[in-house]
């Protein structure tokens, strides 16, 4: 909350600054993260066939979101007065991912409780409302996609709900009056953008090198109170997802591998023959 002009000092989020600093320097940075299953997880399908069976799954902070958290913290370290609020929309277990982000160096955390079945639309709307209620945001960072549903929609959808410009798959950002960005597109080519603030930035792998949380910071993070919000708190009690999944199946088995033997010339000849005559791909 901003309170202004109190005995010649400006109060911003409980911190006070001398007159010479402007309110704009009290920059609120948000990072949206998602808790996802570890990449090694073998996914089982629930008996009703409509969802994945999550028992025994090891949960992690989405790898792409790690780059976003790191970028947000680096921005804070370079801008006095900036704070980083990490937000996650999801079921209760998402709190653990928030703790990881806090341990990396975020100042505060918000958990927005949304159901397991929430789609990108609902999660994006919930995140946007939570940011509006706790903002205003100077920059919102997030990863380019979550590795559980691989939708890659929340970043731009959330930006649209917030009425902010956004650039995704960002490999590099240089911060000035506007933000100079490089976004990765097909063929490894880079699109260059000039992005004004406030804005949303979705990180690509390699944007930076995420730091490891030190043990003391992990212990400190356990004690930080996480703000809890429900959909009702966000005036979204009746909000629903736009899509759902009616059936999950395991991909069909490919069948066994045909092993080709012989010395290099013979094996090469046999392989190419098979690719041409049997598989018909050459």
């Amino acid at each position, binding site marked *: 909350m901003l309170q202004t002009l109190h005995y010649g000092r400006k109060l911003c989020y409980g911190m006070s600054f001398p007159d010479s600093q402007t309110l704009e320097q009290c920059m609120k940075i948000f990072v949206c993260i998602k808790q996802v299953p570890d990449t090694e997880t073998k996914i089982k399908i629930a008996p009703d066939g409509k969802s994945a069976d999550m028992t025994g799954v090891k949960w992690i902070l989405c790898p792409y979101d790690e780059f976003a958290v790191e970028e947000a913290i680096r921005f804070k370290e370079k801008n006095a007065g900036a704070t980083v609020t990490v937000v996650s929309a999801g079921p209760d277990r998402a709190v653990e991912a928030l703790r990881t982000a806090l341990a990396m160096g975020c100042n505060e955390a918000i958990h927005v409780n949304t159901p397991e079945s929430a789609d990108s639309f609902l999660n994006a709307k919930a995140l946007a409302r939570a940011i509006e209620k706790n903002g205003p945001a100077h920059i919102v960072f997030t990863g380019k996609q979550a590795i559980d549903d691989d939708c890659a*929609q929340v970043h731009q959808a959330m930006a649209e709900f917030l009425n902010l410009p956004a650039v995704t798959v960002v490999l590099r950002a240089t911060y000035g009056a506007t933000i100079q960005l490089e976004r990765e597109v097909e*063929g490894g080519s880079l699109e260059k953008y000039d992005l004004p603030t406030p804005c949303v930035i979705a990180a690509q792998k390699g944007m930076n090198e995420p730091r490891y949380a030190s043990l003391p910071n992990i212990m400190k993070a356990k004690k930080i109170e996480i703000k809890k919000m429900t959909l009702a708190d966000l005036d979204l009690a009746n909000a629903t997802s736009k899509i759902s999944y009616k059936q999950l199946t395991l*991909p069909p088995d490919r069948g066994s591998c045909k092993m080709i033997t012989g010395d290099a010339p013979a094996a090469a000849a046999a392989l190419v023959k098979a690719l041409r005559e049997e598989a018909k791909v050459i």
Partner: protein
Amino acid sequence: MKVLVYCEHSNGRIKKGSLELLSNVVTWPGVEAHALVLGAPGTLAGLLSQMESHAPHTVHTAEHSALAHYSPEGFAKVVADAAKTLGADALLATLSAQAKDFLPRTSVKLDTGMASDCTSVSMEGGKLEAKRPMFSGKVSASVDFGNAKPAIATVRPNALGVKPEKMGKPALNALTVDPGSIRTSVKEIVAKSGGAGKADLTEAERIVSGGRSLKNSENFKILEDLASVIGATVGASRAAVDAGYRPHSDQVGQTGKTVSPVLYMAFGISGAIQHLAGMRSSKVIVAVNSDPNAPIFQKADYGVVGDLFTLAPAITEELKKAMH
């Protein structure tokens, strides 16, 4: 039912994946297929003839100077407006860096649902049906769009295959365009060196991929030579990228690119789950590895146990013969 296909183009050519998608939609029974192209004034006329071999009912053109360069906001709004004006039941696009970027904004503008990276789409009983992979391809999920209108979906290149020609002369409709406020757009594109002329991994029909066993970046020339014989794009495993042999944009896998070629040849790649996640929907997988126990042999269709440094050149020679 009206299905609107957003057709992407660059350098005067409609994207292969857009034509593949259009070629499918024009065959759907009970569906009136519409195509949409965006661009600067005067740049769209040359695209029309490219759509005659898979002719939709109407090609809608949106011309405006603000559309000369890609912007998420501008493209999202113009496409949303077009879908709304048309009363489209479904809005489809080939999965690309551009479409995956702006369509989520379009879905919010239209207060509708979107499914990304679908490996199959069809119209059944007046509703869009789609399947998409989840958990890095470990699961295939059927999407229920409920009452979403238009149902929005991006479709993975090469997933549907190009349907036979359906010649025709589509009607033309020049749209009134209001791009709205655009706060950021592409100022410049820096092409990756050495990437010219090669299909992007995500669109490539043939891929030759190398792992850490290549030992250094110079050795990747062996795979480049093989690839050039069959017009393939070269990819790499995370291990090879982390070791610095290839750039990250060549990485195939969970934190790299997801590819769906007709032919995927993996040299010296062990086949970690994270790599498989990126290439498991390849039609035919060939694995060459010196380790007979490499997990990749569980997923490959053809396997050769041996030294890739002798096998790759030998395969190149055989392919040269076969291509003549």
